[in-house]
């Protein structure tokens, strides 16, 4: 032990946090982690529960659903059904990470390495986050959103606003452009242009419904161009721009929910990678500190104990099994990539010719920047890991009487298991594919959506409620058709609203 220990006991102090942070930052920089500046906030357990229930954001608009979540978390925490997460970290610049005051110094160091350097560098560099979120502006934007919404509540009544937000939340997952890069958020611009937009939007909408005499009657009988010309996947965007009856302020709120949905969109697609990356780095960084003699054996024991808990993967028949643990899979894959780079076997050379034997830091960095869960697994899940996890895939086809084990961790099964697992993380197959199909502009102004079935999977009953919410936003009849694999469309839900005289 050449250097002195950073701390002896388990108590933390601000001074100690500072010293640990400096050492961790030094090691992280050694490994080439590129991060936003950090803002570490020490909070109490109740504040952690507050943070939980506003989806981790330090500011957010008010809504009962957050209250419901808060009550749920509070209940479970008080009854001891769950511990609070050690950390919440916010994709903003500076990157905000919360430390709980109840934690020991070891845990604080773990969280600093995990959140303030692991997640932080992921937020800053992963392509999805770079394309979809704007860390500089998110806090300002949320502040703007909250103020705007509470202003609306004062002007139009809490109830009115609440119902609108309910409807928007129901469609939140359909408020994202999957392929188009969205424009950057800027609170400043938002404020400046919001008035302009209100007036402009209203005029556009009216234009859509302009009653023009039909010049050629033959035209209107079926050959009339469908509106929208192409199916639209971003339902909230379509509503915001085209719903005939919404007031300007309502459009603005739709827009706010849409923007928030978009901000969380990358997180939903990079769970395994993001957690794996952060876990890999807290493990690597703290081990380096230990190698340098900066932390004690006791520190390492405590750290390893909680690290092991985090990356535990119960098997499918365990009572604790609830799907694949993203921490476990992510950490195993990140560590495995390093192993393939540093110490490849023949099998690795065959499966991963490009990376075996390469510089591991650069390889990992590349993987972190350019993939999401689905493609990351499809690219990097190695046969060795499939064996270690004993992964197997089960085919559940309602046309068959039995479930069938389609592939297991053997030579013939590696590719299929890997593909099936990657597909499990594909948002496109996890969520029903529902798009705006057409608007009956000359008739009853009804809106028709189409659900394109994926592998014959039907919609859950909750769709009925969602269609009602959609009907509230659209203001006229909304229909939802389901298109089976043979191309036949069938009406599955309809929500008529009584026409106002």
């Amino acid at each position, binding site marked *: 032990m050449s250097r002195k220990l950073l701390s002896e006991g388990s108590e933390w102090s601000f001074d100690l946090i500072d010293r640990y942070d400096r050492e961790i*930052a030094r090691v992280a920089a050694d490994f080439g982690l590129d991060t936003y500046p*950090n803002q570490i906030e020490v909070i109490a357990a109740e504040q952690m529960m507050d943070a939980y*229930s*506003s989806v981790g954001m330090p500011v957010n608009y008010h809504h009962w659903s*957050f209250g419901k979540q808060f009550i749920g978390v509070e209940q479970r925490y008080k009854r001891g059904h769950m511990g609070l997460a050690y950390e919440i970290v916010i994709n903003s610049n500076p990157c905000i990470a919360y430390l709980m005051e109840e934690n020991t110094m070891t845990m604080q160091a773990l969280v600093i390495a995990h959140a303030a350097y692991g997640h932080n560098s992921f937020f800053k560099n992963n392509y999805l986050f770079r394309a979809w979120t704007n860390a500089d502006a998110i806090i300002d934007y949320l502040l703007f959103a909250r103020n705007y919404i509470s202003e609306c509540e004062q002007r139009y009544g809490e109830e009115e606003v609440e119902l609108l937000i309910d409807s928007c939340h129901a*469609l939140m997952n359909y408020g994202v452009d999957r392929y188009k890069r969205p424009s950057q958020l800027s609170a400043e611009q938002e404020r400046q242009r919001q008035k302009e937009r209100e007036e402009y939007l209203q005029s556009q909408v009216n234009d859509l419904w302009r009653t023009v005499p039909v010049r050629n009657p033959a035209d209107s009988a079926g050959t009339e161009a469908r509106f929208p010309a192409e199916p639209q996947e971003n339902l909230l965007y379509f509503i915001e721009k085209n719903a005939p009856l919404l007031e300007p302020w309502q459009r603005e709120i739709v827009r706010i929910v849409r923007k928030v949905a978009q901000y969380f969109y990358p997180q939903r697609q990079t769970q395994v990678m993001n957690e794996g990356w952060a876990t890999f780095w807290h493990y690597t960084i703290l081990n380096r500190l230990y190698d340098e003699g900066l932390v004690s054996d006791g520190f390492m024991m405590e750290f390893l104990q909680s690290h092991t808990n985090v990356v535990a993967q119960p*098997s499918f028949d365990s009572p604790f099994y*609830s799907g694949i643990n993203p921490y476990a899979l992510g950490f195993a894959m990140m560590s495995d990539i390093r192993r393939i780079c540093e110490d490849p076997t023949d099998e690795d050379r065959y499966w991963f010719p490009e990376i075996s034997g390469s510089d591991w830091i650069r390889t990992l960095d590349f993987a972190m920047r350019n993939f999401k869960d689905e493609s990351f697994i499809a690219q990097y899940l190695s046969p060795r890991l499939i064996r270690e996890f004993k*992964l197997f895939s089960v085919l559940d086809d309602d046309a068959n009487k039995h479930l069938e084990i389609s592939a297991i961790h053997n030579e013939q099964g590696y590719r299929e298991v890997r593909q099936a697992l990657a597909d499990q993380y594909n948002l496109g197959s996890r969520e029903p594919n529902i798009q705006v199909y057409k608007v009956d502009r000359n008739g009853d102004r009804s809106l028709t959506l189409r659900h394109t079935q994926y592998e014959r999977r039907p*919609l859950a009953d909750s769709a009925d409620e969602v269609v009602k919410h959609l009907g509230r936003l659209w203001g006229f009849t909304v229909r939802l058709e389901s298109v089976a694999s043979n191309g036949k469309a069938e009406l599955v839900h309809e929500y008529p609203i009584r026409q106002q005289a």
Partner: protein
Amino acid sequence: MTQVIDRRLNGRNKSAVNRQRFLRRFRSQIKRAVGEAISGRSIIDIDSGEKINIPTRDMSEPTFQHAGGGRREAVHPGNREFVPGDKVKRPPNGGEGPGGKASNSGEGEDEFAFQLSREEFLELFFEDLALPDLVKTQLAMLTDFNTVRAGYSSDGVPANINVVRSLRGALARRMALRGPHIRRVHEAEAELETLQAAPSEDEDSAARRATLEEEIQQLRRRIESIPFIDTFDLRYNHRIKQPKPTTQAVMFCLMDVSGSMDQQRKDIAKRFFILLYLFLKRNYERIDVVFIRHHTVAKEVSEEEFFHSRETGGTVVSSALEVMRDIMRERYPTADWNIYAAQASDGDNWDNDSPKCHDLLAASIMPALQYFAYVEITPDHHQSLWQEYENIAANYRNFAMQQIDSATDIYPVFRDLFRKQDT
């Protein structure tokens, strides 16, 4: 690069607003749940909140989701014995894998259970209760004042000086006092100028110039001696206190502590009064409560004694009514007070006393009263007191009586007695 901030001192209840929103949103369901909860509530813990269950489906947030069915492939870890091509029986819940994956979707719990705080519980419980006929309002007890601004005054404490007003006054005063002098100075200067423009050497003109110059100087001195601000200019913000009218009401609590009231019945009576007491304290800012205990004799007691004293004896109900009547005459003139009474007894009165109670009530108490609530705590059949009181109830609309069998009746009976009436 790193900034460490201690946020522990920041507010802890950021979610309070959202919690309130949640409670408001599901008010009707929660009220129903409170209603159900009170029928089985053991009132021992009047200090605690209440656990509330509301059905999850009532508050779901729907989204588009896949239902079971179709074709899907799921990957699970921890294979032991399976080989490709194995057929496994479909688990009965329609789950997707042999592990019974259905549990991770968060379904399975039909009820969303949570704890209402005591405050929240009582608020919901007392929500549509009220003392009936709270009409006589007199501005007798002026306990509360609103401080309102009432213009400006010329004296006050320095902290209340209104700077703008004071300086405006000073400016006006300066202008008013200087005006004539300045005008005179201008005149004198003009004259002096004409004299100097046409210099003649005669003595008159020279003397005139000298006087003029002297006069100008004198006036200038005068102007300068006018003070910039004077105590006379000072203005103070003036605040006055306005009385806030309050409604006056008094509640008489009459409790039977005779020997026939066994421990359990006394308990029920006490809890009933505790509930009543909480309700009054909570919903009415100014209310007097008079506690009267009786066995064969009655006396007015303090709150402490009312709930905790262990004295006991036989039963003469009229003694309590007499004490009440006397106190009413003495301290609570009907003209000024809304008078209420609540009585709890097991109805086991000395036989000859019951008609006396009837007479007392009919003659001197009921006419002055807004409302009289009687609860009889007995699982048995009623005795003479109940029958006499039934006669009263027939004659007076503002007389209510209810029977409590067991502790679980307390909340429902209480709600029934103090239900908000449409009058």
